């Protein structure tokens, strides 16, 4: 219980302290310290769950089970490494004159609040509070996307606010319908929205109402996941915001939104006899994979390229959860983990690359290996990992998803294989010249902070070769829970 309180209180405290610290030179260190403290608290909570198993705390308002515990740890970890990356990155951005130093107060404060809303969304047991936290996550990141105040970033932030706002309003309607169905069984009051209570009676919930509710919930939270055709905000927000924000949006927020969808799917699966929710998720997932893969081909901006790649991978994961069954769900959970680690690593490397060359346009980025070998190799390895090259973890999860699809939904495999092939061609052909092409630029003296990149990639490599037994155990029990 103390673990949950600490995980939620520390980022809030961090935000308050950072608002007070403002633009003083040590603010970015305080940001790293607050993120580290949150990560340690999350690690403590994780150890507690390993030792004592799942728990429901504080009047059943909070929940830690195998499905969310690894996401909490992952979120806190990536938020910490991103804060490490962002310290030199944002200082250089300020030096380059892209934003006044004074604005770092807003940046740091919002960064901590954003971490808080994501952790709250993961830990809450109340489906209504889950909605509130998801909306909070949008609100805290709008001003981060528009941090540079350029016309393009303002446009991206406006699109992000309006599209996700409308999407999340659909999810609210879905939540209202869910409460409406729950109230019939559980009676009025706060308990009728507690996920554990709903899960216990999910067989008795009114099927028609739940079917309508799920459509609204999927469309609503799906907007935040970036599922096609609701994905329009995603590439803009990723490309125009500061790189650390792109990394946490892609690596964490998309996961948390998908987590919300899957929590709702578990309830709907129990209430409806057929595979209604699963078919919907499979359809949305497959369309996202295929459309995003082909859109990858025409990208010119490095951050947009990897933003579309995130849509593609979110599509794969949604498809996996739609397939259902122990293997596909296991693979989906693994893919959530490795995608989050790999994609944030790629954004770190891409961020350094754009900072060194002064452009996000891929045609103008050449010869990264000459300019800075670490950045070049970091980007290459990251791209190979995200493309599903063995022995990285992405290969393991994609292989499991593909083989399950071949067995259970053979019609989907050609689409998946084509999309993966196209994505490979698109990303590899664009990354290769950026890294190895000829350049006139000389090697820069500044040493990039590449440690987070290689730590992430090492973890992805490890997950491809060996999954720690406790993690595998969580994946298995969560896969069983998801059904």
């Amino acid at each position: 219980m103390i673990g949950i309180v600490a995980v939620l209180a520390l980022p809030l405290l961090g935000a308050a302290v950072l608002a007070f610290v403002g633009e003083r030179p040590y603010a970015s260190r305080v940001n790293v310290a607050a993120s580290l403290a949150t990560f340690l608290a999350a690690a403590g909570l994780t150890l507690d769950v390993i030792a004592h198993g799942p728990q429901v705390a504080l009047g059943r308002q909070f929940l830690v089970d195998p499905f969310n515990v690894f996401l909490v740890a992952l979120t806190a970890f990536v938020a910490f490494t991103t804060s490490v990356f962002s310290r030199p990155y944002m200082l250089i951005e300020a030096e380059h004159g892209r934003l006044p130093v004074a604005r770092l107060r807003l940046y740091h404060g919002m960064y901590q609040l954003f971490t808080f809303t994501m952790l709250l969304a993961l830990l809450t047991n109340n489906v209504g509070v889950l909605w509130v936290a998801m909306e909070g996550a949008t609100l805290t990141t709008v001003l981060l996307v528009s941090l540079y105040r350029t016309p393009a970033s303002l446009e991206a932030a406006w699109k992000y606010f309006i599209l996700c706002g409308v999407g999340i309003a659909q999810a609210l309607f879905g939540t209202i319908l869910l409460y409406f169905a729950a109230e019939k069984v559980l009676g009025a009051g706060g308990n009728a929205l507690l996920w554990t209570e709903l899960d216990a009676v999910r067989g008795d919930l009114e099927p028609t109402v739940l079917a309508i509710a799920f459509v609204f919930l999927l469309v609503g939270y799906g907007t935040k996941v970036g599922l096609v055709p609701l994905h329009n905000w995603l590439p803009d927000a990723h490309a125009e915001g500061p790189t650390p924000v792109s990394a946490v949006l892609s690596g964490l927020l998309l996961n948390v939104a998908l987590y919300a969808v899957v929590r709702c799917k578990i309830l709907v699966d129990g209430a409806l006899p057929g595979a209604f929710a699963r078919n919907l998720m499979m359809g949305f997932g497959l369309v996202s994979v295929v459309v995003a893969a082909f859109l990858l081909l025409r990208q010119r901006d490095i951050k947009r390229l990897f933003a579309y790649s995130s849509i593609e991978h979110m599509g794969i994961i949604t498809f996996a959860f739609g397939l259902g069954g122990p293997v596909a769900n296991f693979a989906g959970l693994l893919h959530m983990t490795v995608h989050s680690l790999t994609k944030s690593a790629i954004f770190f490397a891409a961020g350094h690359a754009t900072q060194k060359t002064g452009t996000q346009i891929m045609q103008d980025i050449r010869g990264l290996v000459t300019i800075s070998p670490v950045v070049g190799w970091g980007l290459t390895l990251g791209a190979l990992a995200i493309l599903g090259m063995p022995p990285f973890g992405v290969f393991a999860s994609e292989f499991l998803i593909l083989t399950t699809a071949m067995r259970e939904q053979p019609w989907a495999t050609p689409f998946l294989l084509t999309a993966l092939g196209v994505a490979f061609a698109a990303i590899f052909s664009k990354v290769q010249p950026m890294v190895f092409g000829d350049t006139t630029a000389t090697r820069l003296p500044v040493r990039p902070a590449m440690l987070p990149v290689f730590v992430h990639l090492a973890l992805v490599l490890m997950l491809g070769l060996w999954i720690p037994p406790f993690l595998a155990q969580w994946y298995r029990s969560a896969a069983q829970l998801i059904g």
Partner: protein
Amino acid sequence: MTIGAQLINLFAAILLLLAFAMLSQRRVVSLIDLFAAQGLVLALSTAVVAYTTSQPHLYQSVALTLLLKVFLLPWLLYRMVRRLDVRWEFEGLVNIPTTMLIGIVLVVFAFNLALPISEIASTVTRSTLGIAIASVMLSFLMMIVRRKAIPQVIGFLAMENGLFFAATSATYGMPMVVELGIALDVLVGMLILGVFFFQIREQFDSLDLKNLEQLRDERMPRPGVSRKAQAVSPESKQP
């Protein structure tokens, strides 16, 4: 039908009328008035539901609605309009008669969607669920057809009103913790938007959203986004 139920139906009808009025209103200031009126009707109808069904917790949401949607948000919006000096809106994307016709189609669709749900509902307000969904959809339509930032935001807030009405019609309101959270989100969202409007205004000298339609996959980046943008030759641009 009891007098309470009749009153609730009357308020629901007024809500629907207000939604159409918002759809056809071109002046920003009048739009804010209509939004405040919508909040007031919402509060009145919730109060009647609270009284007739003796649900004391609904009085809290009445107070919340009055405070937030009748006073605070319209006041913030008025302030913004005054400080940004945007009184008029000239044209929408679709002309008003066509918008109204699309609106009518949406209402029919909303009533059909509400039918299976309200059959199961046991609340006295179940017949108004269709109207609630209709006003959500009409606000959605308003967001689509408006070209200026403030009317779009009012559409967004009106949508939230419609959702709140749906919650009262179907279930006598959400649990208090959720309702407070939603109210907090709406308020914080409004404040962030306020900051945001000034940023847009500073950058473009107008709140017209046509300025915000530049981002494309193959766009030429604007100066300031990338310092090397000019170096790309037109031949190398991808189709």
